């Protein structure tokens, strides 16, 4: 019953049709929203006493690192659906998330490093959060190269799903163990989460920017999953009659 429902409404064909329709308005809304949130955060919030202007990177860094982890979770969710119900659409979506996730993770690391220069005086610290984010980036890259190294798509899909699941179990473990490891050393001078004195004036644009950045990235995911569907379903008749 449920399976039938899935197969009818989650077929690549109907997904593609809906995605094509909503993609542009979706992207436009969230781009505008994000630009608005950034403008609010960058231009209309008071300067921080301790960090000066550099703290404003928070409005780009925090959304990116949040979304980079959420994307992996979504990918794992899709992989489970694919492995259990053999739903093709879910693995198309999962696969199209990987390059975007890599880009977002890279940006999260990059913006963190830039932020580190004025606040910590160094662009890198072997602190728990940064190390686990770096591992996340490596896993995204590994997944991309794994899928591209198979010439049989069906095998590649299954390996992809298995490794994503291994990774998603792995991420909390790594996080926990790296946390554990870093407690041995002195904790970093300023951790990213304990931004000094978050007052509501900063909090509102921060939440708005996280929300809108997430929406923006989901818009890009819709775009790239459309590409993936086209690529994989080329020989189907509905693609030809597009």
């Amino acid at each position: 019953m449920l399976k039938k429902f899935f197969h009818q409404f989650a077929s690549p064909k109907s997904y593609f049709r809906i995605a094509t329709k909503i993609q542009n308005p979706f992207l436009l809304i969230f781009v505008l929203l994000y630009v608005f949130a950034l403008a609010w955060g960058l231009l209309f919030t008071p300067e921080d006493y301790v960090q000066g202007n550099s703290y404003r990177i928070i409005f780009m860094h925090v959304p990116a690192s949040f979304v980079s982890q959420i994307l992996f979770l979504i990918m794992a969710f899709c992989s489970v659906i694919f492995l259990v119900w053999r739903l093709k659409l879910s693995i198309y979506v999962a696969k199209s998330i990987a390059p975007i996730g890599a880009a977002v993770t890279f940006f999260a690391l990059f913006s963190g490093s830039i932020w580190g220069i004025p606040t910590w005086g160094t662009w890198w610290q072997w602190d728990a959060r940064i190390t686990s984010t770096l591992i996340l980036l490596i896993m995204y890259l590994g997944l991309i190269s794994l899928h591209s190294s198979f010439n049989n798509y069906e095998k590649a899909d299954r390996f992809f799903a298995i490794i994503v699941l291994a990774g998603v179990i792995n991420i909390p473990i790594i996080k926990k163990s790296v946390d554990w490891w870093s407690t041995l050393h002195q904790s970093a001078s300023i951790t990213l989460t304990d931004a000094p004195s978050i007052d509501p004036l900063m909090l509102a644009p921060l939440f708005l920017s996280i929300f809108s950045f997430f929406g923006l990235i989901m818009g890009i995911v819709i775009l790239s999953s459309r590409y993936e569907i086209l690529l994989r379903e080329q020989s189907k008749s509905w693609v030809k009659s597009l």
Partner: protein
Amino acid sequence: MIKVNNLSFSVNNKKLFHNLSFAISEGELIRISGSNGSGKTTLLKIMLGITPPKKGFVEKEFSFGEKEFEFLGHKNGLKTYLSVKDNLYLMDLKLNDKNLKVLNDLSLLDLMSETVGNLSYGQQKKLALARVILSKARLILLDEPFVGLDDDSKKLLEKFLYNHIKTGKSAVITSHIDIDLPYSEICLDD
């Protein structure tokens, strides 16, 4: 003995065969023919249960686990860095008189201590065939068994297959080369 029902298979959306049904009874030799890339090897692998089919199913009278069948594919399953004797040990073949006689017929007896990597392609193929011949399985599946064999060995294999089906056992082979045996044919070209 084995029944194939409405089998379909495709790779990357390219159909290999569609709604294929046939049955193999006792004492029957089946030859699967078809052009290159028509899915002969894939069909064998589906019958063996290595590859799952896209649609349809294979009914077996006996379970494949029970040493009732023997399979030889393109790859011989030999260790090239070991001697012929060691390979026979890995295949669980004892060196008793009966087995040694068959090896002698295949003219492998003089090569027992030779490293397999030094043997010619045909000799290696014969060693791999020795496993099939000595296995006493009820069903044997051979993928292109005649490739690389000389005339004598080809005749020997044909004689073996003939005796094999004569005693009520069955065999499935894929081959491009014509054989002097009664067989029923399954053609994978449409």
